[in-house]
């Protein structure tokens, strides 16, 4: 056991820190100051954030853990953790590209062919193609296997029918990765396929709508007999085998709940800002809760270091990522709730903490509700009977 970083890792951290400091300032200047940056989940803010994403790409920070050939810098998981810590410590903005980079890309690496990788990944890193996740449907939320959107084999491609919803940033993206039922006779988890879909096809309609926090962060995507040519994506629009969509998607789910979607750096930064808020507006009655939340953010970092040690030793992520997701999503709510209590009557005003809190409330819902995560932890980690 050795909890110190190597000189190389410290150098990596210093490089990231310096780059972020300089480029964040430059980005703010570009938009006339941080006060003019709107949420990336609004149309106007999304466009602003695109300039940040492209800056990241130019600095080769868009996807540090990817091979250099695809726009990354072959960083280790350790370096990725370091980068994330620095990213959030610097106060850099949430990644509007995250659903592509953190959810689709691992799947492309695992299941894509070389042509798909070569086309999809660099354009994703460069924020040329902007990917949203098309899984949920009006009747398939927690129960993803209830998907009814259909992809029907036709000459030279697929015909798409159905509807996706709660598609994060769907109204601003260019592409969707989604699950469609390709075998109408199969039920539940069978007969689904994982498709890569440009959103500018004829017969595809995207309608943005407001999330709880007021931003137009959600979209409905309607497919009305849209024709998806096989060659819409070089290497093909099918990721993995036809009918294997569930298995392919579940690999992504592991990433979503686990390591990559919500790195410890994000919560460490929030916890640190909370400590600073407390120093400005101390409230002894909240001191223990503050310490508790800070410790839980720190414990998340330690838990992750332990996990990465195991992964570095050859282990694979297992169902324990389910408790991970419960932990950070509830921690995020608590961090923001304490902040709102510290703010007192001012908490009613819209502001970063209020906004952050409303967003945090979605954490126990998205990426598999915490109820489902608890089922998974109980059944697959502890071995309790499924019934």
């Amino acid at each position, binding site marked *: 056991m050795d909890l110190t970083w190597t000189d190389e890792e410290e150098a990596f951290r210093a490089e990231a820190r310096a780059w972020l400091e300089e480029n964040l300032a430059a980005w703010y200047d570009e938009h006339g100051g941080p006060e003019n940056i709107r949420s990336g989940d609004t149309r106007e803010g999304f466009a602003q954030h695109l300039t940040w994403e492209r800056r990241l790409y130019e600095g080769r920070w868009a996807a540090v853990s990817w091979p250099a050939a695809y726009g990354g810098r072959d960083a280790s998981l350790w370096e990725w953790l370091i980068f994330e810590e620095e990213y959030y410590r610097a106060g850099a903005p949430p990644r509007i590209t995250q659903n592509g980079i953190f959810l689709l890309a691992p799947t492309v690496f695992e299941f894509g062919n070389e042509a798909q990788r070569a086309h999809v990944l660099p354009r994703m890193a460069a924020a040329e193609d902007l990917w949203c996740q098309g899984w949920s449907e009006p009747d398939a939320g927690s129960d993803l296997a209830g998907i009814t959107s259909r992809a029907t084999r036709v000459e030279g491609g697929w015909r798409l029918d159905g509807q996706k919803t709660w598609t994060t940033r769907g109204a601003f993206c260019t592409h969707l990765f989604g699950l469609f039922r390709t075998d109408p006779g199969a039920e539940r988890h069978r007969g689904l396929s994982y498709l890569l879909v440009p959103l500018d096809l004829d017969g595809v309609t995207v309608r943005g709508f407001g*999330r709880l926090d007021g931003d137009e962060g959600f979209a409905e995507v309607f497919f009305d007999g849209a024709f998806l040519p096989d060659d819409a994506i070089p290497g093909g629009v099918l990721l993995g085998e036809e009918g294997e969509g569930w298995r392919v998607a579940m690999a992504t789910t592991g990433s979503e709940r686990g390591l990559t979607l919500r790195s410890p750096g994000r919560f460490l930064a929030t916890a640190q800002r909370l400590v600073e808020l407390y120093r400005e507006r101390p409230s002894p009655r909240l001191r223990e809760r503050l310490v508790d939340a800070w410790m839980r953010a720190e414990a998340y970092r330690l838990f992750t270091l332990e996990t990465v040690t195991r992964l570095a030793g050859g282990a694979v992520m297992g169902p324990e990522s389910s408790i991970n997701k419960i932990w950070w999503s509830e921690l995020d709510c608590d961090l923001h709730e304490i902040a709102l209590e510290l703010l007192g009557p001012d908490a*009613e005003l819209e502001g970063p903490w209020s906004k952050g809190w409303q967003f945090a409330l979605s954490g126990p819902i998205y990426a598999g509700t915490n109820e489902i995560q608890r089922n998974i932890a109980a059944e697959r980690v502890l071995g309790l009977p499924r019934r």
Partner: protein
Amino acid sequence: MHFGFDDDQLAFRDAVRELLEKECPPAAVRAAWEAPPGGLDRTVWDRLTEMGVLATLVPEEADGLGLDERSLVLVLEEAGRAALPHPLVDTAAVAAPLLAGTPGGEGPGPAGVPDAHGIGMVATDLGGPYVPCAADADWLLLRDPATGALHLVDPATVVLRPVDTVDGARRAAAVDWQPAPESLVTDDPAAIELALDRGAFGAAAVLVGLAQRMLDMTVAYVCERRQFGVPVGSFQAVKHRLADALKELAFARPAVHRAAHSLATGAETRARDVAMAKAMASDAARFVGRQALQCHGAIGYTVEHDLHLYLKRTWALAAAWGDAAWHRERVARALGV
């Protein structure tokens, strides 16, 4: 000992419920999010005025209904169930009895102010730094920050700075104004304290109604919504969340009703009882709201679904008129700890 309501009180509640179901559906709450300052639709407010709801606590000799908080509490719960955007607590629970001088005062309203019955819409900053419906109100009841004295101020004489709050239908603003002798309503600490208690009590009653609405919506939703081939309400985790929501609400409600009794009877324990009511109602409503959001899932996490209208009002009111921690502090002092 009788801890319940009489037929008149229940009939009054039913009449208001019927009115609000018709005149204050979710669409009316949404309209209050959108209307420009000063443009709040008054249809439902005018009907409430006609019914005498605003003058519930005004004595009959002053053309009021001559009732007390035991009647008002049920009406305010209905206002909560409907998420009524108008400042009913400010007007009916706080301003009307204050201006009518009840109980036991003489009602020294400033010159030019209509009688308590016909006062119209009053908004106040007693519940927090920002005044709800500030641009829509006919009068502003404001606290002089220097002396604590209460003034009734013509909105035409102040500068409003609208603020962006979590609940858009609160239509809140900061108010820049100058106290003047002619606007003074009272500087009697006891009268001010009573006004604050009435406001906290009123907010507590509204929170109970909001919580009930969110619970009802969620029960209906989980019975209908199917996932994994069954209604999601058949999952034990959902059942237990909602059982706890039911429990928290069921035990907060009597505390609010008791506060109504303590106010109505001028009980010695009034301050403690109101504080307990507001603390419990704030916590219960926030808790119920949290369960409601989680049980609705992504559907509830949109502004297209109605849940957020009730949820955001809950957040705003839980923090207004003293949050739960502030009122627990008052209870602590009453307990001598």
